């Protein structure tokens, strides 16, 4: 039955979706030269192809990043929405970065390296989309990480390495260590969603030789509390990230860099009636 669902999703996407990358983002393809511009930030992420079922073929994963808005931008957005509730988003500068899986910087053995130039700022790993053979130019939203995820700074003139973005279908067991205890591993009422994890860049992370000489930092991930499901996809949350992100027994995000307590200790201290972020 899930194969039917997937086929329908792909058919639908082929019917409805044909949007290119948003805003002024630029995707670097096929190892092309990356010349650092001082007013741009550069992001690099590695994803892995996921084997679909039946006719869906191989799926490529697209991290969806959201640039955090400043107060002026938020007010501008609110005014635009009130003025034109239908078309307001088209009148604003996009703050979404979709790292396009169809245009990889490098690919080998199922690993896909994505490099994208973006506006500098604080970015949230907000969702994951995917691309299959039927999706001509863009991807299809799959999983919203609105119940907890990470954010990072993308500084101008610097290549920020996001490490590896790992996904597995929630309804099947996986051998990915970060997700093995996260996936439901069996049929769920939320079909066809991914469980998502990150493996931050470290000393053993391989860098394409052509990017090795660029000014580069590993993403300094911070925990991001829950936020409204603006992505509109099935909700989920990023798997815990050692020393960065965890969850207490009430599902609240624990910022392990801010408060390196265990999740259990944090849970004991958080029995309040405070309204969770996003509902305030």
């Amino acid at each position, binding site marked *: *039955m*899930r194969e*039917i*669902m997937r*086929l*329908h*999703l792909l*058919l*639908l996407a082929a*019917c*409805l979706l044909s*949007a290119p990358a948003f*805003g002024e983002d630029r995707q670097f393809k096929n190892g092309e030269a990356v010349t650092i511009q001082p007013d741009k930030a550069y992001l690099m992420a590695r994803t892995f192809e996921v084997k679909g079922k039946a006719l869906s073929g191989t799926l490529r994963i697209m991290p969806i990043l959201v640039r*955090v*808005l400043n107060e002026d931008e*938020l007010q501008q*957005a609110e005014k635009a*929405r009130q003025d034109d*509730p*239908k078309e307001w*988003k*088209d009148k*604003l500068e*996009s*703050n*979404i970065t979709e790292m396009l899986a169809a245009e990889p910087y490098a690919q080998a053995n199922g690993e896909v390296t994505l490099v994208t130039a973006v506006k500098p700022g604080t970015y*949230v790993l*907000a969702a994951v989309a995917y691309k299959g053979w039927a999706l001509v130019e*863009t*991807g*299809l*939203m799959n999983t*919203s990480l609105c*119940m907890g995820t990470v954010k990072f700074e993308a500084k101008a003139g610097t290549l920020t390495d996001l490490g590896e973005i790992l996904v597995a279908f929630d309804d099947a067991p996986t051998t990915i260590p970060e997700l093995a205890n996260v996936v439901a591993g069996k049929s*769920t*009422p*939320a*079909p*066809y969603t991914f469980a998502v994890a990150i493996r931050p860049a470290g000393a053993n992370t391989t860098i394409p030789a052509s990017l090795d000489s660029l000014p580069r930092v590993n993403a300094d991930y911070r925990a991001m509390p*829950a*936020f*409204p*499901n*603006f*992505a*509109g*996809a*099935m*909700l*989920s*949350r990023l798997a815990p990230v050692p020393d960065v992100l965890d*969850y207490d027994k*009430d*599902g609240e995000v624990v910022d392990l860099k801010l408060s390196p307590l265990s999740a259990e200790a944090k849970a004991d201290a958080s*029995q*309040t*009636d405070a309204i*969770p972020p*996003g*509902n305030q």
Partner: protein
Amino acid sequence: MVVKQGIAILVACCLNATFAGAQTIVVKVLERPDPTTVTVPDMAFKPGRSDLRGFDDYFYFHKSGVSYERAFTDMDQCRIQSEMAQLAPPIPRFIPLGGEPAKEPGFHVPVYSQYGVAGAIIGEIFIEAATEDLTAATGRKCMAYKGYHRYGTTRAIYKQIDSGTDGEKLARKAVIASGPPPQAEALEP
């Protein structure tokens, strides 16, 4: 539910359904009623075979030690998150992170689609049913993250719980969630 969603999406595709033509709607936080004004039905029942089959649709949540106020807030947040979920959403071009929760228009079949008014009506029925299932599934996942357990009930009891305004429904569910622990075993999230 998977089949229903698949059919709805295929119907949407065939009828040239779009996301355009409707406006963004802010999803407001519900006002919390005084729990002393909330009445809940007797939750005791002896499950029959038909009841067991209905537990995907007729259920309630419970969490040991949670207050009514916290349960109401948790459920309201999950309601908002669920209402914002869509069938096969496109990648948005702008997200007002930090702003008010707002839901986007879902699939909409033009009344005068290529299959006429009847086609549009049938399409809307499929889409609405699948969207309801998606909303329920999203809500269940959200509540599981927040540490709530799910318990089955009968259609008759559920209809009593799920009656009245949105605030009254949520208040009743929050009273139950923060009340005496159920005797039954918890279901899968």
